[in-house]
């Protein structure tokens, strides 16, 4: 895009000058436009398409589509399996988020207390975050294998017989959450530690001079100043746990008896195993609404603290 020299233009409003003004005023679209068009095509259009599909009765086989209004939504909300998977997802979110948050926060506090070996410890803790969740799931399947897994071998050394931890309803749910925590508490750790590194030192020094106890320093100084960082960590963990698919798919595939079936897994099955495209679309729109609500709430808290954009 060649730019005409402004000073060479006559003072009058020639056509060339007006066109130039117009392109100058809208030049940001030249940079942003292409990316925005693609995002409209790959994000907004599919969501509109999905919303449309959810209002009809469409399967992959038949495109004859009688309009059914909100019937798919009603069916979904009245479906026991859907409600069960919603409950499972809630369980997953609550325990995975709180577990990874507490561990990650703890690790971040601890690593501030040491100096030697900090980099190598941090590097090791990063490893799980960068692994594909499917690889993590398959790896833990091996660890938890009742016959030759490392966990059961270890339990055997303690005199405890081999457990089928992933095949029992009570423990499978717990194991999947624990593995999720194993993979993601390092993310909380990284975020909180990065946040702590930016805190000013002055309040700490004056508090220490006045003999404030370290617990009070933590509660009155560290926590309030870390608020935005904590919210970001919680937000990311919540949405990631809410949409979990890969890990559960390879570890239990929703079993036993649907006790680990998350919403993503259930909707996947509804669409691709039971060929109920419209109903799955309705469910995914519901999921989008819930996640929109959660992030909107957290964003409101966040923007009270910091300016973004």
């Amino acid at each position: 895009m060649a730019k005409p020299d402004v000073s060479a233009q006559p003072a009058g409003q020639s056509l060339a000058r007006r066109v130039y003004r117009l392109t100058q005023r809208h030049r940001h679209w030249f940079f942003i436009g292409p990316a925005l068009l693609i995002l409209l095509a790959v994000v907004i259009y599919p969501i509109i398409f999905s919303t449309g599909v959810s209002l009809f009765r469409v399967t992959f086989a038949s495109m004859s589509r009688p309009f059914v209004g909100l019937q798919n939504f009603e069916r979904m909300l009245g479906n026991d399996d859907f409600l069960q998977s919603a409950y499972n997802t809630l369980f997953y979110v609550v325990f995975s988020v709180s577990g990874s948050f507490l561990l990650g926060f703890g690790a971040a506090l601890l690593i501030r207390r040491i100096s030697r070996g900090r980099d190598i410890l941090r590097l090791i803790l990063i490893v799980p975050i960068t692994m594909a969740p499917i690889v993590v799931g398959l790896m833990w399947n091996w660890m938890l294998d009742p016959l030759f897994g490392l966990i059961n071998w270890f339990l055997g050394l303690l005199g405890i017989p081999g457990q089928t931890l992933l095949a029992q309803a009570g423990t499978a749910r717990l194991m999947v959450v624990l593995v999720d925590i194993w993979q993601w508490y390092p993310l909380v750790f990284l975020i909180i530690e990065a946040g702590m590194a930016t805190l000013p030192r002055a309040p700490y020094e004056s508090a220490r001079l006045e003999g404030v106890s370290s617990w009070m320093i933590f509660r009155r100084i560290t926590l309030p100043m870390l608020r935005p960082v904590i919210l970001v960590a919680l937000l990311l963990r919540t949405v990631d746990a809410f949409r979990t698919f890969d890990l559960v798919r390879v570890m239990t595939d929703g079993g036993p008896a649907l006790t680990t079936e998350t919403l993503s897994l259930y909707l996947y099955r509804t669409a691709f195993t039971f060929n109920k495209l419209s109903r799955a679309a309705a469910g995914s729109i519901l999921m989008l609404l819930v996640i929109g609500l959660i992030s909107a709430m957290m964003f409101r808290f966040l923007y009270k603290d910091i300016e973004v954009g």
Partner: protein
Amino acid sequence: MAVPVRERALAYAILIAMAVLVLIPVLAGSLTAFKPQIIWISSPPVWFFQPTLENFEFVLITRQNWLHLRNSLIISIGSVLIALALGVPAAYGFARFRFRGSRGLMQWLISLRMIPPIVVGLPFYAMFLFLERSTGLGLRDTHFGLILTYQTFLLPLVIWMMRGYFVELPAAMEESAMVEGYTRIGALRRVVLPVVWPGIVATALLNFIFAWNEFFLALILAGNNTSTLPMAAGTYVVRARVEWGNLFAVNLIIMMPVIVLTIFLRQQLVKGLTFGILE
């Protein structure tokens, strides 16, 4: 500040325990990839043995997972290149120009990070299917189709990360170059790009990791021609009988490039993982 010795010892003990809990499954699992088949499932585990590469040979050549490796490379590199081509200019636009709605648009980009993959994966499958039936235009099971859908999570991330790098640069840089007679594009090419180059590389590598590890969209949209390495890993689990050595060979092929990249990228990692929300 001085930390009491006992407190520091406790911190070391807990952190080292955490590191060990991270390393044990990763290392012990990876070790299986080098075990000959007869000791894959021996319990107690065999720790000392003659390491072999036969599992890698088996998965890559006999089971033809080199095809999956190739697909993963094509799709990951292709989608990152497209995300950069579209996202770097957009990031520059957001960093340099204030216009009505720019703030709202940036926030909208963050919100894309929250969308569950099923929400876009489902309509993509249906759209590709219906498109093929009505026009014969096949995007299903093509590299391009997957590269396109991967933009849903790569493009917003590229824009956010790169915007951070552009904001850090003083606008006076291009302005003085423009005074000297460069056009804005010329100034971008000759003055700005050489400076943000490391940022572009970091953004590219981090996005490569996300594309490389992606499983859900590939599961829905890939077929025989395009199925990726994470999908190949699942094929070694057949009911209760799992080919552990082969499985971990594939796992290791997936993990290795990412771990190497992480070692170089650890400074940029937080920025990418938090989507730059913290800035």
